Structure formats: C-alpha cells, structure tokens
C-alpha cells in the first residue's frame, strides 16, 4: 500500500526541517502553496521555519530538477524528487552540471499525480510511466507497487502509423498554435543553455516572432537538442498554454535513441549522454 500524499507531505516537512537545522544543506527545493490547492508552486526553503510552508499533493507535478542549475557549483541542495525528476537529476549529473555529493535527494514515491489543467491522472501516456524515484537518499513513504506496466512508447503507435503528409499537417497545425512564450523551455530541466540557440542573433537560427516557419525551426531544433537527454517528465506539454503535445515528439526521439544506441536517458550515473558518446561498432544502418 502506497503512502498517501498527506503522509508524504508530513515526512517531507520533518526531513526538510532537520536538514536545514543541522546545516547539511543551504536550500531545500520542494513545493509550496499556490493560489489554490490545485495549483501548488515550486518552493525554496532556506530557513528551518520555512519548512512548515511545504506542501505536497497530487497536483505537485513540477520538475524541481529545473532549479538545480541556478545555484553556484558547490551549493549543498536538498531536492524533492519524483520518478522522472530523479532521472533528470541523474542526467544533470551525467552532464556534469551538478555533483552527486552536493545533493540530497528526497524521494517521493507518488502514484496518482494529476494535471492541474485537466484534472486527469498522469500516467505513461504523457510521461515515462515510472512512479518510484530511480535514485534517492531517503525515500519518504513506501514504494508504489502493483501498477500496470505499460510501455511509455505505446501512445506513439497511432502517430507512427499515420501517412507522412497527414503527420506533417498534424504537426504544422500544432506548431502554428505556438505563441513562443518559451514555457516549454522554462519548465524543462534539461534546457539550461545560455543563450538558447533561438535567442542568438548571429547566427540567427530561426525567426523569433510566432510564425509558422520559425516555430517549426524552434521546436525541431529543441527536439534535437533534447535527443537522448529528455527524461520524459512531460512537464513541457503541461506548461504549454496552447496544449501542443510536445511529449509525443520527445517520446519518439527518446524511443529511437533507445533503439539505436541501447541506452535510456537518466537511468545510471556512470552513463554518458548518447550524443556525446559513440561506439566504433555503431551500425551504418541507423542512417537509413
């Protein structure tokens, strides 16, 4: 039996208070109250008394690994991680953006997270379909067991079966909705480039105003930059104000990378991201 959200919240509060009091960490990244219960916000606790403001409920979907790269190297940080978030942390460790010894990971085994926009339960349709953190120091609550195992890539089948012209029309329609608010980039734990390629003026990679061709350039290049790094948390699509199903494309690229290079992103600390690595015996077939 998995722990309830209230039990996990209480444990998270105690743990955060303890860590801040003993000075083991200088900040704790967790969730706090938003404007109502359905919209909690990321919350940064810096004092032991701040720990009382921490909340955790089924709408705490945000990927807190996003905020790790904002701190100078060497800052001791405790971060509350759900399943996909812990994969993001592993991926950041692989990319040497953070060090394992600077982090204390508070694992949150959570089943039944809900999308605060639609109220739907988040499962392998839009995310990686894991409910227990992959890497943690302390697990706050009991592991989730007994959920049906569904491949996160099952949802792709209907899009892969589409005719290529129909698929192009589908993506064109979706990308044309984009208003270039860059919420996907802001929500993504892996999008930490400064400056982002789309903000550069020389060379100017793509149009910056929300036009069809600029949107296509931005999104396709972003999918490419996240190839083999996207940990499938689905936060980009939940952050999107116009509901572009970005997770579909990310899943497709992740699936292809896994098939071609035999390595899923963010599962082991010692792995190297697939596109900064190679094997001499990679097959030329992957180019066909």
């Amino acid at each position, binding site marked *: 039996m998995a722990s309830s959200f209230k039990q996990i919240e209480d444990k998270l509060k105690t743990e955060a208070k303890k860590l801040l009091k003993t000075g083991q960490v200088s900040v704790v990244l967790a969730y706090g109250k938003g404007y109502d219960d359905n919209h909690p916000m990321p919350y940064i606790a810096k004092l032991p008394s701040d720990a009382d403001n921490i909340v955790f409920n089924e709408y705490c979907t945000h990927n807190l690994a996003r905020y790790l790269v904002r701190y100078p190297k060497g800052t001791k940080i405790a971060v509350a991680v759900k399943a996909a978030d812990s994969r993001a942390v592993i991926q950041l460790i692989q990319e040497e953006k953070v060090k394992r010894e600077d982090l204390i990971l508070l694992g949150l085994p959570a089943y039944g997270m809900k999308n605060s926009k639609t109220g739907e339960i988040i499962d392998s349709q839009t995310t990686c379909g894991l409910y227990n953190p992959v890497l943690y120091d302390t697990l706050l609550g009991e592991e989730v067991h007994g959920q049906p195992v569904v491949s996160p890539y099952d949802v792709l089948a209907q899009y892969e079966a589409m005719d290529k012209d129909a*698929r192009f029309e589908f993506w064109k329609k979706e990308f044309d909705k984009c208003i270039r608010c860059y919420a996907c980039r802001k929500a993504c734990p892996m999008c930490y480039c400064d400056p982002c390629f789309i903000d550069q003026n020389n060379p100017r990679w793509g149009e910056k105003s929300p036009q069809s*061709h600029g949107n*296509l350039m931005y999104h396709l*290049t972003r999918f490419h930059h996240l*190839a083999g790094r996207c940990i499938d948390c689905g936060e980009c699509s939940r952050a999107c104000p116009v509901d572009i199903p970005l997770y579909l494309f990310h899943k497709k*690229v992740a699936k292809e990378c896994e098939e*071609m290079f035999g390595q899923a992103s963010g599962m082991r600390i010692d792995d190297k991201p697939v596109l*900064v690595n190679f094997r001499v015996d990679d097959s030329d077939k*992957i*180019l066909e």
Partner: protein
Amino acid sequence: MSFEPKILGIACNWCTYTGADLAGTTRLQYPQNLRVVRVMCSSRINPSFIFRAFQLGADGVLVGGCHPGDCHYNTGNLYARRRLAVTKKILEFSGIEPERFRVEWISASEGNRYAEVVTEFTEQVKQLGPQTKFKISR
C-alpha cells in the same frame, strides 16, 4: 520544362570534398544540381543547417564524410553518425520524406563513387518532386 531539384551538399574537407575534386579532375559526368559547401569535418554540421536548408528551399540535402575510422580528427564522423541518425528520425517524424536527406561516406580516392552517389541522389529527389513542406513561402 522538367523539374530540376536544388540539392545542398555538405562535404567534409578531407574525404568527400577531395573525392569531388578527384571526380572533377578525372572528368566524370554528374548532374549539376548539387551545391557543395565545404566543412572541415562532418561533425561540424549542426542539425539546424539541415532544417534551415529545407526551409530556404533545398529539395534535398546530401552529407558526405570520411568512412568511419578514417576521420582526419579520429572520431569526428563517429559523433556525426549518431547525431545525423537522430536528425533523420526527426525529419521523418515531422512528416517530410526522409529520402530527401542522405548521409554517405565517400573517401578521397572514390571519385567514381562520388559521381555515382550524386547521380543516384539527384534522380531520387527528382522523383520526389519539389519540397514544399518546410519551404518558407514568401
């Protein structure tokens, strides 16, 4: 008038570009649809070059590099192989014909092969017709 495709060729300085040179000096015939850009290594190619080429009206993109293991910089084309494989999958899933993008390994001594590949690829793109999906309409 029949359709003459515009094809962007991106060739590695050490192998494919020298191979193209050899094809020229041995006076081999091949179609003129290819516009070649020289880069120092196939791993120099940013995938955005390819997306951008399609947006600016290329009907096909041909990338040439050294054979794996023969890279002038030892490992450049091994990185490029992985990267361009992902580019191809992205182009495919976005709905453009993946046949418009091709990666070939052509060494400096393979002038014949260069001419063959260019002829074959030009024919293939000709069959596909003009590329209108990515092209920016002005």
